[in-house]
Each structure stands twice: as structure tokens, then as C-alpha cells.
């Protein structure tokens, strides 16, 4: 009898497997459709890393911390490497395959009129296209300033172009100016605002300002290459509308949500890494002048800030001995500045100093320092007045540019991207390269292309190296002229 039962069971089991394949190959863990607003949210989650340089040990691919060493905000402790300018062929995979391709998809879905871009749920077509194009320009701006020539016009085309060509930085800049101009003009505040906007919460006017601010900053990059164009673009951007007084564009990390934590929090609390401390370059600059911002930027020991000497090749341990990041900077739900009003004032001060605009450079500079103290929550009129009176800080016509750029650098802590670009185009702050560096060239001027580039895109790689120069960290890109 037992055998009969066994046979019967086998028989039933066999019959039950006779269904078809229809749903077998559908992964229940993947969404079937991604509305454009969800693609936008993801594209925005990567925004802060460009201006709030941080190690991303687990969110691999968005590591921008190396720039903090180039502009000497941070020093390395036990494993000196990046601060000694170790050769860097920086991977760009995540930027292209992550936010950039997401944004391209938003543009494609809107252009095709796909239901996934439904204006009711995702924002009007004009507004969606505008935001996607602005953000795309933002990321490309970052990439071209890192590498020089980059794949641009034939990039993001999937299997249609498997080996994209490299566009010159000049043509990338030209197109980015055009994109930003067109995109901000496309914005229609009377139409439905974009949704999924975790940066500006659908404020379309802010998106206009976001675009114009990028243009403003980009124009100053051209100072040495094409001053006339720099001036034209600068004024056009200013006219189109930038941040107003006290206005800042910022990204909020989420405390309590490991997936949206400030990467510095993750580094300290989750990963227990204490590899970097506040650099003596910024530390001593600020301590010498009793700048209260340093206590926001740096950890204190009984009120004492202990910067780590910059650029030594010896290994040292940090905790307890040297100041790591300050509490505000390392909080899980920290606020990462993208563009700040104080920064804008320094940018305008520089433009005034150069005669691009007719405002008073000194007044703009002083307003910039004040706005910075306010931004970092240390403003006190008397203290500031004393600070501004110091000869190191006080504005003079002869040292105007140096003062402006140095204070801009002191303000935009952890924004190595902006500081590094400023240093390349103005030479300020006048950094001393790391004493322990093994690189004869000193502070790097560009990133090498990802090490896999030649293997994957040989002909175009060889062509760009022939055109732009050796693929190392010292070849000067188009706008970075001596």
C-alpha cells in the first residue's frame, strides 16, 4: 500500500509541474516600471557628493574625498596616499551609469511621451525636461572639470554607441552653457512642478537659480582661456537670476536612515574608520586668526582644535590625538551645502575685482565673510569686526583676488571640487605641496581616465591622449592654462 501512495505522490507532483513559463522569469524584487519621478529622486541622491566631498566606503563609486586632500582641508593619518598625490585613475562608472543615465532616461521618456513621464504625477514635460537637462549639465560639468575631454555627445546611448568618442572640453563647455541657458528658459512656473524632487521640493524658481549658478561658476573657470566669454556668460547668468540674500541650496542627509546617512557618519560610526583629520593648512590659517568656524569644521578636545600636519609621509594615528571632523559635519543627518549665498558673494566679489561687474569688490568680500559666519552659525558682529580688521583678512586692492579666493576656500569647507578649480585657475590659496609627496608635479591638476578605459574604448582613448596630452594627473586641461 505504501508503494501505491508513493507512486501516487510522485504522479501528483509531476502533474503539478505542468504549468507554463509565463510568470516564472519575472523577478518579484524588481519594479516593473519606474516613473520618471523615481529616476529623478535617485539622480538627486548623488548630488551632494560633488560639493560635500566624502568617502563613500559602501556606496562605492561616488568617492570624492581625494579633493579634500588637494585643497588641504584634510590630512591623512595612518595610510598617507591621496594626500601624497598617489597616481589616480579615477573611476567614473557610477556617475555615467547612475544619475546621468537616469537623467537621460527622463529626457527620453518625456520626448517619447511615455506614460512613465505622465505630467500629472511627475511634473509638466517642460519642467521635467528642464530639471533633467540642468542636472545632467551639473554632473557633466563635474566630470569635465575632473578629466578635461570626456565622452559627451555620443555617450549615454546604450548599445547604439558602445565606444563613445571624447568631446573636447571646449565643446563640452560650449554645449553646457547652451543646455543650461535653454533648460532654465524651459522652466514654466505656472505648469506642474516636478515631483520626486528631494533637493528643491519642486520649487521651479529655485531650479532656475540652480542652473544660473552653475553657469556663473562655470564662466569663471574660463578666466584665463577666454576672458571675454567668461564675462559675457557671467553677466548673462547673473541677469537670469541667482541666489538671493540668505538663500542656500542644500542637501539634507537623513539621520536614522542608513541608506541616506551622511557618508562621514557612516565612516565614523558604522565603519569605524579614523583615517583622516583636519589639515594643518586650514586649521592653522583659521586658528591664527581666531576664526570661530574652525570649531564647526573640526573636533575639539576641551575646546582645543588639533590639526594634523599636512602631507607627511609618516603614518600617524588620529583618534584622541588629532581633530577629526566637527560634530556638525559628521552628523548622520548633516546638511550638505551645494551652492550657498556666501559663496555667491565671493564669486561676485571676484567678478567685481576683475571688472566683470561694477559692484564694489571689497563690500562684496566683506559681505561674503559675514554671510559665511552666519551660514556656519558663528556670527557675532564684534568678533567679526575684529577678525576683519586683521591684516591677514582685511581686503586690500593689491591682494584682493587672493583674499577673496582664500576666504571662499575657508567658507566652502569640504567642497574640494570648487576649491581645487579655484586653485587651478588663480593659484590661490597658495598651497605648499605635501612635503612627503613622491610626485614631482606637486598637487595634481586632473584625474587620469579610469584604468579600464583603454581596454574598453581603445581607439577613442588613444585619440584623446594624442590630442589632450598624457593621461596622467598633471596634464593641463583646456581651461587650465598657465
Amino acid at each position: 500500500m505504501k508503494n501505491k501512495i508513493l507512486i501516487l505522490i510522485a504522479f501528483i507532483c509531476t502533474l503539478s509541474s505542468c504549468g507554463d513559463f509565463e510568470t516564472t522569469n519575472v523577478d518579484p524584487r524588481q519594479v516593473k516600471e519606474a516613473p520618471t519621478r523615481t529616476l529623478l529622486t535617485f539622480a538627486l541622491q548623488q548630488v551632494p557628493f560633488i560639493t560635500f566631498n566624502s568617502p563613500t566606503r559602501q556606496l562605492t563609486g561616488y568617492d570624492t574625498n581625494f579633493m579634500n586632500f588637494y585643497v588641504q582641508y584634510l590630512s591623512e593619518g595612518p595610510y598617507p596616499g591621496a594626500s601624497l598625490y598617489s597616481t589616480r585613475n579615477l573611476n567614473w562608472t557610477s556617475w555615467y551609469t547612475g544619475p546621468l543615465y537616469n537623467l537621460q532616461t527622463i529626457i527620453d521618456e518625456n520626448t517619447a511621451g511615455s506614460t512613465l513621464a505622465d505630467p500629472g504625477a511627475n511634473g509638466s514635460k517642460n519642467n521635467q525636461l528642464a530639471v533633467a537637462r540642468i542636472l545632467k549639465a551639473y554632473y557633466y560639468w563635474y566630470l569635465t572639470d575632473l578629466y578635461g575631454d570626456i565622452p559627451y555627445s555620443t555617450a549615454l546611448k546604450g548599445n547604439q554607441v558602445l565606444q563613445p568618442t571624447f568631446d573636447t572640453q571646449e565643446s563640452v563647455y560650449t554645449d553646457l552653457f547652451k543646455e543650461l541657458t535653454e533648460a532654465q528658459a524651459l522652466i514654466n512656473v505656472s505648469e506642474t512642478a516636478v515631483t520626486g524632487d528631494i533637493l528643491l521640493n519642486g520649487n521651479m524658481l529655485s531650479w532656475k537659480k540652480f542652473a544660473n549658478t552653475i553657469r556663473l561658476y562655470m564662466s569663471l573657470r574660463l578666466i584665463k582661456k577666454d576672458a571675454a566669454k567668461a564675462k559675457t556668460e557671467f553677466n548673462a547668468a547673473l541677469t537670469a537670476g541667482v541666489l538671493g540674500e540668505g538663500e542656500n541650496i542644500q542637501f539634507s542627509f537623513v539621520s536614522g536612515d542608513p541608506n541616506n546617512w551622511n557618508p562621514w557618519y557612516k565612516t565614523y560610526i558604522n565603519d569605524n574608520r579614523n583615517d583622516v583629520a583636519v589639515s594643518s593648512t586650514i586649521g592653522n590659517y583659521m586658528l591664527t586668526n581666531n576664526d570661530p568656524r574652525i570649531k564647526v569644521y573640526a573636533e575639539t578636545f576641551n575646546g582645543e582644535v588639533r590639526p594634523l600636519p599636512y602631507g607627511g609621509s609618516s603614518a600617524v594615528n588620529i583618534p584622541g590625538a588629532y581633530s577629526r571632523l566637527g560634530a556638525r559635519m559628521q552628523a548622520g543627518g548633516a546638511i550638505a551645502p551645494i551652492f550657498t549665498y556666501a559663496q555667491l558673494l565671493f564669486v561676485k566679489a571676484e567678478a567685481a575685482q576683475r571688472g566683470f561687474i561694477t559692484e564694489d569688490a571689497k563690500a562684496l568680500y566683506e559681505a561674503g565673510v559675514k554671510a559665511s559666519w552666519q551660514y556656519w552659525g558663528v556670527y557675532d558682529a564684534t568678533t567679526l569686526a575684529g577678525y576683519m580688521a586683521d591684516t591677514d583678512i582685511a581686503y586690500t586692492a593689491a591682494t584682493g583676488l587672493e583674499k577673496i579666493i582664500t576666504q571662499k576656500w575657508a567658507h566652502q569647507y569640504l567642497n574640494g571640487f570648487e576649491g581645487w578649480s579655484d586653485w587651478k585657475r588663480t593659484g590661490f590659496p597658495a598651497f605648499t605641496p605635501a612635503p612627503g609627496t613622491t610626485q614631482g608635479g606637486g598637487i595634481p591638476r586632473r584625474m587620469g581616465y579610469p584604468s579600464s578605459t583603454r581596454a574598453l574604448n581603445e581607439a577613442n582613448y588613444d585619440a584623446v591622449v594624442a590630442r589632450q596630452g598624457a593621461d596622467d594627473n598633471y596634464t593641463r586641461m583646456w581651461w587650465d592654462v598657465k
Partner: protein
Amino acid sequence: MPNYYSFSLLIMYPMKWKLPDQFMKILCCALGLALLTGLCAPHSFAAKNYDFTHANADVRLSGTVTSLEDGSALPGVSIIVKGTSKGTISDINGKYELSVEENATLVFSFIGFATKETVIKSQTQLDMALVPDQQSLKEVVVTAMGYQREKESLPYSVGIVNSENLTFAKSNDLSTSLAGKISGVQLQGSPSSTFDNGNIVIRGGSKLGTSTSTDNNPIYVVDGTVTEQNSVIMDNVKSITVLKGAAASALYGQRAQNGVIIITTKKGTKGAPTVELNLSAAFEKVSMLFPFQDQYGGGYASTTDSPGTSYDSEGFPTFKYKSTVHPASWASFNGQRMLDYGADESWGPKMNGQLYRPYYSWFPGSEFGQLSPLTPQPNSVKNFYNTGVNLNNSIAFSGGGDNFTYRMTYANQDRTLIVPEARRNQHQIGLSSSLDVNKKLSVSSDISFTYSKTKGQPGEGYALNGSNVTQNFTQWWQRQLDTDRLKDYQNEDGSYMSWNIGDPNSTSDPKLYLKPQYWDSPYYTVQKNYSQNNTNRLVGNVGLKYKLLEDLTWQSYARMSYTNIEGDSRFAFGGFNANSYSINQSIRREMNYETNLNYHHAFGDYSVDAMVGGNIRQNNWNELKETTQGGLTFPDFFDISASISRPNVVRDYALQKVRSIYGRVSLGYKSLLFLDGTLRNDWSSSLPSQNNSYMYPSLGGSFVFSELLKNSPVTQVLSSGKIKASWAKVGSDLPPFQVNTSLINQPLYGSNASAEIGNEYRTGNVKPSLTTSWEAGFDVRLFNKIGLEFTYYQDDNKDQILSLDVDPTTGFSKYQINAGKIQRKGVEASLNFTPFKSDFYWDVTMSFGRNRSKVVELADGLNTYLVGTERANTRLEHRVGSEWGMLVGQKWRRNAEGRVLIDSNGSPLVDQNQDGGSIAPKFTGGLFNTLGYKSFSLSFSFDFQKGGQFASRAAVHGVGAGQHAMTVGVNDKGIDWRTFPSLGGGIRVDGVYGPGILINGEDVSGRENSTYIAASRYFNGARQGDNLNQNVLDASYIKLREIRLGYELPKTFLSKVGIKGANLGIMMNNAWLIYAPAAKEFGIDPSELEQYWYEGGQLPQTRTSGVNLRIRF
């Protein structure tokens, strides 16, 4: 009758059946009909008598069984009373005794001899001479789908190992136990000091591996059921057949592309019940360690050029009392020598017994403030490891009557490792039985269940969280540390003590300076931060066999392989890592429903052996992992609900169905010529619906030329000989859910959903891939003593489904494509030699395999497939035109004369993207010996590998952090190179300044290098620039893997206590690594790599020695 004719029709015209579902429904119905026929057939099997009694035993019978051929005694002959389970087995001298009823029929059966039946009258003595059965003397091999074939008739190469040769030294690991025993099989072992299994690769790599080695591993089939190798009860293995090539494995379909390991378990035999006990106790000891230096303690002194303000001239940092930082009571410490406690490197001062403040002297308590001498601790690491104990016991009951057999097994393994706190307890039960229900219908079942509980599985690889204590010792350690002292890691206030603390110079706040920098005490790690898991594995089948006609049999099986693992891991409060807890659960299940018809018939000199069948396979995976984030609400309350932030939840899920029909025809002419053909069609759910059906054939033949030479004098030399050749294609699909570009649901932000377009571009139209392969060879036997098998093979693995790396600026980092061609060519040879075959016997088997895998093409414009990147830019790449598995990376730049070119700072210039060697071995093989004299037997096996490379982190960091013996020495001025360069130490790299190098504005290119760099800058920095030469190691080895000396206890004594036989042995596993450059230089056993092309923190090799007692009742 079942409508088997429709089966045949279907097999003949499979292409007509566009709709597999329709076909499968019909198949199911046919199966149903057949089953019903079988069920309803009026066979009165219930009335059958089973005689388990011993009534009326009125004749006491004894005798001797001999071979008619040479009169020699035959031990182990089964003698049973027909129709009952009663019986016995002849002893070593061929003698037997039995009580039987009168007129009973005795059946004598023995493998290799014709079975003989005799009716008992009243005699008490019955000697029996058995006639050798020529037919059955031929070697029988279990082949695909469990078919037993004569080896002579096979057109392809297979490898066979029987149980005596497989498990004689009680290896725990199936793959490792195969090492060196089969030609063309390469072992990718696992460290002998873990619970992990090794893996094997047959005939070398043929795929563009992604991240794991498993892409090139074979499948394991136990009694017809595909399962995991650790589901096997080792003492139950009867034999292993290794199907190597595509022709051999074509019937298993796509999964058999990398070969098949067929495991046949022991079954009960008809006759008297036997009980087998197999007991062993073994001890595992560290047999090899990293070659440490024992002269310098922890610190960073040798990272700098001069003492500066940080160090005294001997490299000690000193305590500098500051009244603003330290309490007044510390004033007396001023000037005391310390170490860089926070350093996890050994670039500190020379250990000359100088008094200094050890780390524990800074913890509050009785030792606070004490100075101790700085002395070497050469045995510190060795003393950390325990002696592991491995108790491995099994008992099996087996027997059977004339219509049933059974074998029941219980096996238990209790094993501790050399790493403290690691323990596994494993219980296995197995049942294998068969029943002839009636003359036509028989049913059978093989089931084994494994439960294992593991606690404290040692951390492996390069672990940033400090869980691999061996990595701690070899890479990030301070050589003056005494592990005995580290046992005592709990402070009086309950907090924990790490050796790797901060700097008391900068603060006197114990919360700050006593905090671990990177590491806890290794004892803390193994005792507090452990993981555990419970694993349940079930593998089994239920099958029936129905004899439809004399020559036609129908078989049907339901098979299951099921694994359920649940476990957790934790980081305790108060250590280096944040307090956290994670749980994991996984279920893997594979079901197979298989039905087939077999036809076997001889027409005069011609024979036909044919089979058609169908199979439905369903694979399910389900995994869930949850990890707390941001710490635990109550310290050391280990539960997911204690997560301070939202816990991280990862779910893995997959489902796949494959339906298949297949057939095989084997034609034979006399014993001279055999032809074999197979055809299989698969429908896979994981392929696009328009491409989900694929068919593939195989053809082969063998020609036993020695049959033509019968009666010729040649046979004096050539006992037998055949040539064989085969050709096959094997199709392959891809894992589930990979047809279309995915949309990844990313972690949301607030209430905003977030999605990313997947990073692999997929066209939605991928096709199954086909591998074509052929092989040819010969088997000869000379003087009836020497057997030689030789095979040449070539595979073309074309149009693989590749996840190809593409330039990420396309928006995608991978592109799914049918492309590429990997060609595998190789030879395999095995030689068996039996020089002696009497009281003294000696049997030796040698195996040899040489494989060359070459990447012929990838895709248009793409010449490189990147597998992965290791430390110091060393990458594993498959490159067009090169050997499979090339290592690529950096080397020192050299001029035309081969001199190293030096930068202005004294370090060599570095060239990227240089070629290293391949990870694939040049050849592999082994040597297996059994010797014996009377009651003594000796078995031992060697295996070896020549060539193949791997990247080593022990070499990179163990040297870079100053732990390795090579980091001690003198420079070309005769001064200790660990001395500060400013004091005459340091290392000058032998080379000349490179072109254009300026020093103080002067062009020094071409001049002899004169810059001395600090020792650490050389060993950690410069040396990594030459990574391919310095830190990529040769994987060659020769190993005496297993050895067992056995003694057969005297029967005369044993029979008095009812024991039929007993063998006592002493054995040793991993006995002697005779040769291995990597072992000599870095203490790494290349046959035990944790990963197939690199090691990140290799656990030590162990040697296991013990005793083994096998008893048969």
C-alpha cells in the same frame, strides 16, 4: 499497456513540438497512464512470503568457496538461502558456515563470477567452485543518468575512484579527496583550517568567470540527484565517476558543461545483515605559518626618514608630559618609552629588552604605570592556535532478502578547528532501499539528511571589520605582542582591552586613548564576535522501475535536493566595531521529475541499448538577510528589533524551470565496435520566450581493436586495447531574471521612491549558447599489469551569454551579448600499474592533465574581459589572443639594460597594465599507491600542480607592514636598513634615475640611484609598484596529501566475539607539502587558496593525524 510508442514518436520529431507546455502535458498524461497501469496491474505481491525467522534450522552446513579457474579461495562471496534474507558471506579463506533447512536452495554470488544455485539435501559440507564470468569481469562504470555501462563501450574519457581509494584517510571534503586521483582534475581547495569545501575544475577554465570560481565548477550528482557536495555521507560513497567532456555529460544538459561528479552510494546486498562501524579520531595542528620576523616590535618608526620629534634614535616614541593635558600623577612618566600603540604594523624599535610602557600599562588597574622589557615573542602566533579535534564516526546496517535490500547509515562528526571557538557538530542519516514488488515492478529510494550546527566559523579573506584573526597576525600586527597576555582582555570595570590603543601623549581621557584603533584582542574577536548557523540538507529520490517487456523497462523518479540554512552573526558591545547583529536564512530547493524508457536487446552479434525520457526541473532560491544599523538599543541584546536605525534587509529570490526531453542510442557489434548517440532538447524559463528551446546532439564510437588480435601472439603483450572518439554540443541558458534590462528599486529617500536603470544593457533577445567539443584517445592494457589511458580533447565554447564589460560612458557598465569564443585544448593520461599481486601487492595509479584555455575572440572592438581587481592594481583579465585568466598589473619601469628606473625620491618608477602570467596551471596530476603485505596495507596519495599564479595579500601587507622575515636586513652600506635613513639606514633601490629626473634642479637621469628611503617606504610603497613580480605568487606545489597504514586484525580472534573483520589504521591528511614556492616564501599552501586567483588573508594550513578503526559485524 502504457503508450510508450507515443514517447518514441515524440523523441523522433521533437522539433515539431513548438510548444513545450503542450508536450509536457502530454508527457504528464502519459506518465499518469503508465503509473495507473502499474498501480492497477493485478500482481499479488502482498502474498509474497518474507522469511525473517530462523525456524527449522536442522542442517549445519559449512564449506569453502573457490575460483574454478585457479582454485584460489574467494572471500566475500554472498551465500543466501533463496527466498529468504538468511545467509552469510565467505571469510578471508573462502570458508563459510550456515544453518539451513533441508531442501532449501542456496545461492552463491560474487562479483566477476557466475551466480550458482544448489539445492541442499542432508549434507553438512558443501564446497563450491565458481566460474569466472568473462562478461562481468569487464569494468562497469556508472555514467550519465545513472546508467551502468561497460567501460569498454564508452567513446569518451571518464575518471573513476572507488571508495577505498577515496576516503581511506577519512577526508571531510569530497573535492579534496579527489585531488590527484583523476587526470585532468584541478583542485581549488579551501584552507584546511576551515569547515569549507574545496572545489574542483575539470579540464581547466572554459568560461569568462565573473566574480566567483563556481562558474567553472562541475555539478555533483548523488544517486542521480543533483545536489551540493556537502550533502554526501562520506563513509557511504561507493564510487565516484567523473564525466569530463561534453559527450560524456551531454545527457545532463547545460549544467554539465563543466563536467559531472557522479557519486554512487553503497547499497544493501542480498544476504545476511552486516554492520559496519567506521570510527576515527584525528587531531588537527598548524603545520605552516607565515615566516615572521622576530627582531622589531610594533610602530611606524621605519616609515620616516629621521627620528624628528616623534621618535628617539632607537625608534621609540616617548611620553611627553604636558600639564595642560595630563594629570600631575603622570608627571613621573615623562620620557618613558612607549610604542605607537595605534600602529598595526611592525616598523617599530628593535627588541633588545629595553624597558617600555606596554599597551596594558595604560589601562587602569594593577599594571598601570608599569614598565616592561621589550622582547621577541616568536611563538606568540603559533600559541594562539589550538589543536583541533575531529571525531568522525559512522555506523551502517545493510542487508537484504531476495526481493529487497536496505542500507541505513548514521554518521556523526564533531570537529573543532585550530582557531579557538570554532566547532561544528554534524549528524547525518541515510537510508537506501529497494523492493521488488513483483516480477515486473520494483521501487527504490535513497535519502540522506544532514544536520550541522556550526559556531565560530573563522573569518576569512581581507576583512575590514577585523573578523579574520589570521589576517590580523600576518598583515596587521605588532610582533612584540604576547598572545597569552591578550587572553586577558576584560578590564576590572567590565570594559575590554585592545592592544591597538590610541596615543596617551595627546590626551589623558581613557575614553579617547584606550579606544581600539583597528583591532580588538584576537581572543575577544573569536569569543565575542562570532557567527553561528544551522544547516539542514536533504537529498533523495523515490523511483520505480517497471519491466514492460523482457527488453523494455520504464523508470520514473522524483528527486529532491533541499538546503535550509539559518544563522546569525554579531559584533559585541565595547569592541572596535559598532554593536550590531544580523540574521540570515536561505532555502534552496531543486525538484526533478524524471521518466524514461530503456530498451536493451541483442540481435545476434549486434546489440541495441536505447533510452528516451523527459525531465522537469524546478529550482527555487530564497534568501533573507537582516542587519541592524546604527547600533543596538540595549548593548549585547542581539535581536533585529534592537536596531537603532532602520535595519538593512536584503532578499534574494530566484525561480527557474527547465523542461527536457532526451534520448540515447548505443549500438554494439560483438565486443568490437560501439556507437553512441544522444539528443537532447531543453526549454528553459530563464531565456526569452522566443529563444527558450534548444537542442543539442552527441555522437561517439569506440573500437576495441584487441578483439581482432585474439589468439595472436600480440596478446601476450597487449592484453586489450581500444580507440575512442566522440563529438558533442552542449547548450546553456543563463540565471533567472536576466532577459531584460533591470529597473533597480533603490533605497527611498523620505517617502520618495527611488529607482535606477540597471547597469547591464540587455536586448531582451539573448540566445542559448552552445559549446562544441570533441575528444579522441585510446585505452590499452599491457601484460595484464599496465593500463594506460590517453585522451586529447578540444572545446570551442562559442557565443556564450556574456555580461561583457563595456565603456561605462555608454550609460551601462555591462552589455549582455552572445559572443566570444574560448578554446580549450588538452591531454589527459592515466597509468595504472600493478607490479605485484600476491601476498605482497602494489598498485599504483598516476594521473596527468594538461589544459590550455585560450580566448580566441570576445566581441567586436573588445579585447579584454575584466574579471576583478585586487590590491595594487592587479587585475584578472581574459584577453583575446592570450591564455585564459591573465594577471595584469604594475611593474617597476626598466631601461633597455634591465636596470630599474628611479624617481627623484628614490622610489622606482612604475609602469601600469603590464602582463603577468595566467592563473591556469600548466599541468596537474597525482600519484596514488596501495601496497600491502598480508594483514598490512599502506595507501598514500600525492597531488601536484605546475604553474598558475595568484595574487597574495599576505605578500603585500605582511611584508608592507613589516611582519615578514624579509623586512629585516642590512643595506649596501652594511647598516641595518630599519635604521632611520638620516642615521645611515634605509634602502637604496638598485637602479638608475629615469629620463628627465631632476634633483635640486639638476638632471640626474642615467646616474646611479643614491637616495636611501625608509624601510617601510621600500617594503610597503616601492615594492607594491612591482606587484606582479613581488606579490603575485607561483601556485605550483607537490603534496603528499593522504596516507594510511592499516592492519587487518586476526580473524581467529575476532570471530570469537562475532566480528567478521576489523581494520585498524593510522592516517594523516595534508601530510606533507613537499614543494611549493609560495609556502616557502609566505607560508601559503597554494592548493588551499580561499579564492581561485587571490588570497586576502589566508588561514593556516593544518596537518590532521589520527586513528581509524573499521569493524564489520
